[in-house]
């Protein structure tokens, strides 16, 4: 009995160390940066009037079906309650007493997207030039791991279909035909009808698009020009979740608008530190090493057993 325990504990310790070699140092991956011509959007909640023209424009540009929402007994033509398999962009209302604000929700096009980190065959992948997180259903198995990963709850799944896909904003990349060029107001824009439909239709320019650097500069300019107007005098998405290409300005707490406190680390940081620490940092050393150890021990034990009992053939 005591022998059992000692051997057991020793081997457990060995096995544990071998299995998680590298997890303790948890090597942090190099922090990703946005590509130089990363395209993004800037949404200013203080300017949004909630007209929802962007919701309609998105549906038309992406050929989405209408979604009569669950609004009790009523039969509204297209009234989604949230992003879903038929809605890539939505306006929601936050109201608490006298305070209220609209918020536009869609994919944040993170600099280090958790959804792409989750995807096995890179069906969700970040474009190297524009930084748009694109979806290719050819490589999607519908495992929905991306839905678990995204801290903003963005990718939606067509649960009601027999041949479902993941649905999310892709910054209208299917409309782009020509190169983007600097516009008269200083932002890099595509020709008409090639940029994100929501930005092109907004009557108040509450949501605009351009390169991330231009939008960040514009957001900071607004904060500097109107001190006290914007919450915490900061741009949400500058560093949040490792930085996103869709930036937000608001006059109410970001959390109230459904923009969570996620810190400045990419969401996948810990998981990848562990996974890459075990498997990829010293490429496959841990598994190969463990295999060698196991094979060696098993071999030695069988030899000893065969010799010890005098049997010619060790059993299987």
């Amino acid at each position, binding site marked *: 009995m005591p022998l059992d325990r000692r051997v057991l504990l020793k081997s457990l310790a060995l096995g544990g160390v071998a299995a998680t070699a590298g997890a303790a140092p948890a090597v942090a991956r190099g922090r990703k940066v946005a590509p130089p011509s990363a395209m993004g959007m800037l949404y200013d909640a203080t300017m949004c009037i909630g007209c929802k023209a962007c919701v309609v424009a998105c549906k038309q540009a992406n050929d989405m079906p209408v979604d*009569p*929402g669950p*609004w009790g007994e*009523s039969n*509204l*033509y297209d009234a989604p*309650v949230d992003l879903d398999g038929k809605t890539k962009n939505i*306006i929601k209302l*936050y109201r608490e007493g006298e305070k209220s604000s609209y918020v536009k929700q869609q994919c944040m096009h993170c600099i280090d997207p958790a959804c792409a980190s989750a995807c096995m065959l890179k069906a969700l992948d970040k474009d190297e030039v524009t930084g748009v997180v694109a979806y290719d259903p050819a490589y999607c198995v519908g495992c929905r791991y991306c839905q678990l990963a995204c801290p903003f709850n963005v990718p939606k799944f067509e649960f009601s279909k027999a041949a479902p896909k993941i649905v999310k904003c892709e910054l209208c990349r299917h409309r782009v035909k020509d190169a983007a060029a600097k516009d008269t107001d200083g932002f890099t824009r595509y020709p008409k009808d090639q940029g994100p439909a929501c930005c092109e239709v907004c009557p108040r320019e509450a949501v605009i698009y351009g390169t991330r650097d231009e939008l960040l500069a514009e957001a900071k300019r607004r904060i500097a020009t109107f001190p006290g107007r914007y919450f915490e005098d900061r741009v949400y998405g500058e560093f949040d979740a490792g930085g996103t290409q869709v930036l937000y300005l608001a006059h109410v707490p970001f959390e109230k608008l*459904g923009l969570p406190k996620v810190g400045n680390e990419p969401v996948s940081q810990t998981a990848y530190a562990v996974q890459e620490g075990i498997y990829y940092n010293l490429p496959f050393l841990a598994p190969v090493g463990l295999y060698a150890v196991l094979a060696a021990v098993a071999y030695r034990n069988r030899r000893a057993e065969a010799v010890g009992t005098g049997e010619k053939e060790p059993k299987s």
Partner: protein
Amino acid sequence: MKSWDRTDALSKLFEDRGLDRRDFIRICTLAAAAVGLPASVGVRWADAAAKGLKPSVIWLHFQECTGCTESLLRTSHPGLAELVLDLISLDYHETLFAAAGYQAEAALKSAMEANAGKYVCVVEGAIPTKDNGIYCKIGGRTALEMLNEVADRAGAIIALGSCASWGGIPSADPNPTGAKGAPQVLPGKTVVTIPGCPANPYNLLGTVLQYATFGTLPALDDLARPRFAYGRVIHEDCPRRPHFDAGRFVQQFGDEGHRNGWCLYKMGCKGPATHANCSLKNFCEVDGAWPIGTGHPCVGCTEQAILWRMPMHATVDIQRPMPPDTYPPIKAEQGHISAVAAGLAGVVGGALAGAGWMAAKKVGGGSEDKGTGPDKGA
């Protein structure tokens, strides 16, 4: 305000019809406003009429039901129909003519010669083209011949009604006569189309009077329909639109929603895809005298792709949707827990664990049993 008393001919005209000048001016300005022309235009009409300068109109009838003519006649407050006929010179109209036969044909010929290049040719009804167009013959000539001849020297050609605009009901499948609209039979010529079944008479009135007053045609869309009447779809100006936006739909003819005048979209209203101004200008000069106003969904009578092609009560796509006036909350409740499922899971899980726990007792016995009796177990 000019005095008309000095013009004897016009006074006599009005006396005969029981109208005084005030009525006349009111009706003229109303007519002008109805077609989007300034009130001063109405004054010019009266002026021209008094001088006897009336534009010549030659009105051809082919494969039609005469509904468009009837619709025009129903614009009568006392005397308006006659006034219209007095503001223009209706030189050929088979329905309204007292004359017939050779006299009528002679009138047509002389009118064409006297006003060559200036007369307005109004076409009512479709033109059969199969078998050289023998399916409609007037006075021994096919509609095809007649139209080509009259249109040749017309100053303006107006196709009134869906039949003349794109073929209408005679062109419904299988279209045995090869019925077509006037624009398809007159390629290369500008043919103003005023579709509708029947067409809204004010649309014709406005077009003809604009031509008569200014010598120009109103702005046309890519199907040659006047934009002032066909630039928007019914859905955009429908009085029942608030019901659509709020999701109040008629589900069945005669139900409570129907009695309350709710939106007819689900009953197959083609309003969202039909270009027309019926919702703004009702028929027969009676408020509410139009299909939706009487409680029946629009059938899309101006549109070739809809009328006689789409089932009357099939729903149509919304072409230019607008969002509803409701806002989802930041966090909408989703998902629920079914009591049945919870019960089922609890019962099965608990039963298995409990059964295992109790069965453990039966397993008890302690010593190893080396016997291998006949198998009766599971």
